[in-house]
């Protein structure tokens, strides 16, 4: 996969990406067999930008970032993950710990299990600051904790700083997690399903908050989610994962309006009210995702694909550039790549693209 620079000139060419992951493979040996969770994933994240990784359960979206951050014990990992030129996968435990939390912070799905129930929220933020910056005094760390809680919209932070996590509501806990992730001015935040456990109105509050702090502090964001609705509002670039591989990569608008991969198209047509399911009946993807122990040969999606051709079962399609003839995409919306044997022009949800796909299948 080529390294993409932010559109807009000045940064082009010379500056390295913030995070550059190349050919990441993650396997878990189990008694049932080898679980191939990630099978050669490459992506880049630029400073201040948002990359969304979308996929269903078991697509490898969470495992891939956890492996990069050294959070998947027992995994057999290969590939490279350059963070400002340093390969995270080659660092020892202690070196990685210094980067994790300080330069790269993580927001998990469930804030109740990521906050320690027996320590005050403020104390946990202070501790994080003092572990990474041992010369900070207690009073200073506390002042910073109050400031951070105020920044993420916790009312009366000077008092709430002494609350325990169970005294916070779900939305407030997630705010506290965001406060903690900002404590050491990170360059990258990995948000793994940050709003999945939350109600719609609270989800809207948290997404707005993430967007605001990201813009304010110029932080890059990797947003991992199963929810294409969340992505539609905030991502710059989207990766769609299936069975441990990227099946499609595109700018946000391109992905929703001009998808190429039948899996992406299928997802869009499955969601009530989405760009792909405008009227009437939903068109679900048949079958269910494969076991990661016995992944189908060739394209892993072929047993569920309505356009599968003989080549699909025989050979794995590479992730390659697609350019719809009538598309033009949206200027500055990133390049568009898909891992599918269908003709490169077959993009979009309209009847023309459908005709192209069906013709390719018949041929």
């Amino acid at each position, binding site marked *: 996969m080529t390294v993409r620079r932010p559109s807009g000139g000045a940064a082009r060419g010379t500056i390295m990406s913030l995070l550059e992951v190349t050919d990441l493979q993650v396997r878990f040996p189990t008694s049932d067999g080898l679980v191939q969770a990630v099978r050669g994933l490459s992506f880049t994240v630029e400073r201040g930008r948002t990359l969304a990784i979308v996929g*269903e*359960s078991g697509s490898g979206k969470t495992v891939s970032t956890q492996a990069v951050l050294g959070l998947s014990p027992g995994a057999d990992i290969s590939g490279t993950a350059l963070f400002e030129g340093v390969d995270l996968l080659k660092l020892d435990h202690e070196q990685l710990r210094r980067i994790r939390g300080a330069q790269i912070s993580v927001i998990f799905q469930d804030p109740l299990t990521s906050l320690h129930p027996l320590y005050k929220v403020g104390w946990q933020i202070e501790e994080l600051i003092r572990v990474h910056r041992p010369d900070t005094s207690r009073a200073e760390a506390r002042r910073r904790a109050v400031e951070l809680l105020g920044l993420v919209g916790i*009312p*009366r932070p000077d008092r*709430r700083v002494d609350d325990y996590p169970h005294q916070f*509501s*779900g*939305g*407030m806990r997630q705010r506290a997690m965001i406060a903690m992730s900002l404590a050491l001015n990170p360059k990258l935040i990995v948000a793994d399903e940050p709003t999945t456990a939350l*109600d*719609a*109105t*609270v*989800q*809207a*509050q948290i*997404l*707005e908050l993430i967007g605001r702090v990201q813009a304010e502090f110029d932080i890059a964001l990797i947003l991992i989610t*199963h*929810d*294409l*609705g*969340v*992505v*539609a*509002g905030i991502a710059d670039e989207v990766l769609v994962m299936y069975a441990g591989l990227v099946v499609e990569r595109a700018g*946000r*608008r391109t992905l*929703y*309006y001009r998808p190429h991969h039948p899996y992406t198209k*299928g*997802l*869009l*047509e*499955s*969601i*009530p*009210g*989405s*760009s*792909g399911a405008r009227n009437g*009946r*939903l*068109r*679900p*993807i*048949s079958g*269910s*995702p494969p076991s990661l122990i016995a992944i189908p040969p060739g394209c892993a999606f072929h047993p569920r694909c309505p356009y599968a051709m003989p080549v699909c079962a025989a050979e794995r399609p590479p992730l390659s550039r697609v350019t719809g003839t009538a598309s033009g995409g949206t200027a500055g919306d990133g390049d568009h790549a898909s891992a599918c044997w269908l003709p490169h022009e077959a993009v979009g949800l309209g009847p023309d693209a459908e005709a192209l796909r069906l013709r390719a299948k018949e041929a």
Partner: protein
Amino acid sequence: MLLEVDHVVKHFPITTGMLVKQTVGHVRAVDGVSFELSPGETLGLVGETGCGKSTLARCVAGLHPITSGKVRFDGDDITNLPRPRMRAYRRDIQVIFQDPYGSLNPRRRVGSIIADPLVVHHVSSGPALRRTVQELMERVGLNPEHYNRFPAEFSGGQRQRIGVARALALRPRLIICDEPVSALDVSIQAQILNLLKDLQDEFGLTYLFIAHDLSVVRHISDRIAVMYLGKIVELAGADELHRHPRHPYTNALLSATAVADPDEAARRRRIILVGDVPSPIDPPPGCRFHPRCPKAGDRCTVEEPLLNPGDHQVACHFPVSAGEDLTAPRSRGWTP
């Protein structure tokens, strides 16, 4: 009317003391809810965590005794019937639960799980029973040859199909679907939604469909009721509710629902509500939504608004008119 729910109240007592229990308060989970369901109709019930939607469903299904109010099924009063008499109505009212993992006994075979209602109600036995079960499995898209498998051998979507087959076994007239697709991946979710629609057409089923996801509810429902803190705040036709939401809470909920369409997401003006849902133990006086409401006035703090009669019911003193802007957040004395 197939189902009439009339001022149903469900309070759970909060007790202290080990030997002598003392009631110190009540969780007012459902606090005076009324609606009706016609045969063949789907009523969607939406609301956020803790609004009482699942408790209401369990009250309707007779799984919780209710504190006050009436539930009528096909004209008969079925409120708090004793077990043996309720049994007759259980054939007609079935439930599909959210969690396809927790609602199936892991140590029993799928065939016998689906057969259970038929055996309990003495509908069928012997070879005929097996045939009926296999027909049901086939109807919901399961392989009938998997009759002897255990739930663990099925995926989440297939388990939910088992739940649907079990609910369908007695040919009920009303099925209460409590978040039936929330635990499923989107591609599977669509399969189950389509299945539920097909079954409704085929058997003339009536659904009470509970979910927190407004897009899912809109897709499947004829009418939608929005709940907040134990009360229905708005009830209208599915499209009408989406086009002309009148309660400020419905407006906020609609604007907050993530939509998988970037242009639509960009057009949206999100109403960001202040604070969190108050506790149902001690709900705010007057309109329960007033501490978070962008339109609340003095009247809202003292006088509780009632649902107006008609096709588009709304419980609000100052309903939202078309084109009104609610996006400036504002709080009236909200304390966390």
